[in-house]
């Protein structure tokens, strides 16, 4: 599989790799399945103003899956939850120039941010 420059860049130098301790202001989204060959874990740290002040990821998957989640952490930082929810898989796919067979990686990234936001919001209602 030949990859584009941006995928390679994120793959070689992934941004924001890591994990947060579980806390009330942290939302965690884990999507995908080992059986399908990719699992993404995205965590966001949200401040009192509802702004994502930090984000980290870990991904098991192909280069496009790693690049999609790495790019996602860059994009969500500084965004409000409402803004972050607007991120669409098509934008990720376009930015990384993903080939058609890798579009599902960007779909997974979109699922991951939505899952992380949902997890955070669930914690706030308890």
């Amino acid at each position, binding site marked *: *599989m030949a*990859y584009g*420059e941006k995928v*390679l860049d994120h*793959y070689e130098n*992934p941004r924001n*790799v890591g*994990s947060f301790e579980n806390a009330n202001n942290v939302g965690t989204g*884990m*999507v*995908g*399945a*080992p*059986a*399908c*060959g*990719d*699992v*993404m*874990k995205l965590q966001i740290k949200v401040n009192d103003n509802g702004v994502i002040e930090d984000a980290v990821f*870990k*991904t*098991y*998957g*192909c*280069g496009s*899956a*790693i690049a999609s989640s790495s790019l996602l952490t860059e994009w969500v930082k500084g965004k409000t939850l409402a803004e972050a929810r607007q991120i669409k898989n098509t934008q990720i796919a376009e930015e990384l120039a993903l080939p058609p*067979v890798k*579009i*599902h990686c960007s*779909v*997974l990234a979109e*699922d991951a941010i939505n899952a992380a936001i949902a997890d955070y919001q669930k914690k706030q209602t308890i």
Partner: protein
Amino acid sequence: MSEQTANKSAASNSAAAKAKQKPIYLDYSATTPIDERVVTEMLKYMGPDSHFGNPASRSHSFGWDAEAAVEEARKQVADLVGANPKEIVFTSGATESDNLAIKGVAHFNQKRGKHIVTCKTEHKAVLDSCRQLEREGYEVTYLDPMPNGLIDLKVFEDALRDDTTLVSIMHVNNEIGVIQDIAAIGRICRDRKIIFHVDAAQSAGKVDINLDVLPVDLMSFSAHKIYGPKGIGALYVQRKPRVRLEAQMHGGGHERGMRSGTLATHQIVGMGEAFRIAKQEMTAENERLLKLRNKLYDGVKDIEEVYVNGDMEHRIAGNLNISFNYVEGESLLMALNNLAISSGSACTSASLEPSYVLRALGRNDELAHSSIRFTIGRYTTEEEIDRAIENIRVAVEKLRNLSPLWDMYKEGIDLNSIEWAAH
């Protein structure tokens, strides 16, 4: 400078960097380079000043010379595997040989029965030939191998029926390198008068084959797996007792009617020379390859959660297939981009398909997705193995630091206890 040109020059810079650093080739089961000695022989049958004639031309020396060369090559191929030259039919490769053997025998014997037995770990050339026969109304039993990749003879025997006309089992598996006991399988077939075909694309020149005593009726060969040219192969068709099959290619009646088409003299000469060299050098070469393979394995086996796929005893010297658990195969290939290797996990479709061979061994999804095949060959050096080991260790560590599954494993979480959302 616009962004586009900036990208372009970055791309060409890295392309230049890549061209400088040629990857280490560890994919000898995919194909091999042509041995220089083979190239030299082939060139004698190509240019205007060469013996370029059509071996079927009976009226001049161009034809006679080409025919003599083809017959010499036929003998060289036969010699490596203990066959009579008259039992060798040249084809375009093992794919064609498999098709000819399987469809040819099934069609010829359809009045006797329409049941075929094969194994789930066969090459696609065998599996898809069988699928085609199923569409034509044949029944095929696809055996599950044991977890080590070998066939359980009891399971095999139980699968045979009165209407079974053909068994097709490969000698050496292309992904995991395990060697099947074709002598034992063949004896069972003989007892029941079932025709036995063996795909030997990955075993010729690597494992001793003596068809003079082996109970095998048909055997497929390919030249490009043992330092010959691509696009040429052969099918061994036993003469005593005579195995009959229906031709799949019709035309001028070449190769005793079994495979029409002008013989590709230079390719055939190349195959002959490659088989001659293999016969001469196989023992010494296997010894060297085994040392390199063991060195490679010793260099990575202490990494946590590393699993060898396939039996380590009944295995060719040049193959090592390992799963690096919790690391996905394609990203590992990317991290090892200075190694030319192949992954069992083909992440090319929306639904990622792990290797069907590893799945047939009963490997779970994570292990099947994390497998890498290293195949070592004639031009592999010890220094290359050292470099490969170092690269693998760095890459696995990097990707495990990125892997949420690795974290979960380290925390003692059973991945099977989690309800994953399939996508």
